[in-house]
């Protein structure tokens, strides 16, 4: 039963990906606008950011996430902030975490809500002002927001 359910979920996710193909261009424009709000237009590079989350989340009300950034966390070179973004949530900016050299390790663990299957993102600002981004795709079987939870 569990296997069948998993199969159906995977199947519907694949269908979703195919249908989403046409909307991709629009989605990327929306993403750009959202990122610009945070970065003020600065370039965003991909890399240095690891976003760990289950690929298949049973419960969209509490999806465990771990964001880790490749940084020495010294006074000269550290992570200043991590912004967690879920574009298909009604309010895409989930949280902003502020860290510093005193953190020692650039890693935050928390639980977020996801209103839909989506690629969740972490936008990281380093102490030199540069922005880096990483993400992970999550398929949610029970969505937050829509089901009264």
């Amino acid at each position, binding site marked *: 039963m569990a296997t069948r359910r998993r199969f159906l979920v995977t199947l519907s996710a694949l269908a979703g990906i195919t249908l989403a193909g046409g909307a991709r261009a629009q989605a990327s424009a929306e993403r750009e606008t959202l990122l610009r709000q945070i970065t003020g237009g600065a370039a965003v590079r991909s890399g240095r950011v690891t976003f760990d989350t289950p690929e298949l989340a049973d419960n969209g*009300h*509490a*999806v465990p996430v771990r964001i880790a950034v490749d940084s020495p966390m010294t006074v000269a070179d550290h992570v200043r902030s991590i912004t*967690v973004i*879920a574009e298909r*949530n*009604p*309010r*895409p*900016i*989930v*949280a*902003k*975490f*502020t*860290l*510093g*050299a*005193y*953190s*020692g*390790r650039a*890693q*935050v*663990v*928390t*639980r*977020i*809500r*996801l209103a839909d299957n989506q690629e969740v993102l972490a936008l990281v600002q380093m102490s030199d002002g540069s922005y880096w981004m990483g993400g992970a795709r999550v398929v949610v079987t029970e969505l*937050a*927001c829509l089901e*009264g*939870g």
Partner: protein
Amino acid sequence: MLARIEVPRQARRGDIILLRIAIRHPMETGYRPDNFGRRIPKNVINNLVCRYNGVEIFRAEMGSGMAANPLLQFHAVAEASGEFVFEWVDDSGQRGTERAMLEVQPG
């Protein structure tokens, strides 16, 4: 607000220690109806700060995308014996505080 924090009691100078906090809070999104179909207003813990001997070492600005009963886990470098203070506030203005002492031995 009921909360639980985890701060190690002891560490050696220079150790990276793990800090955890879990707070009991519904983190109301503002989209959920009550039993009469009326919208329950948004009420989330929007800000949490952790200070170590008075110095802010971590801040979380949060929205309705955070899960109910928020859990946060982060790190700090043990520098000197002292106090960790966690403070937070929700949209309704309700505040909470938790404190713990850390004893740091020379590395």
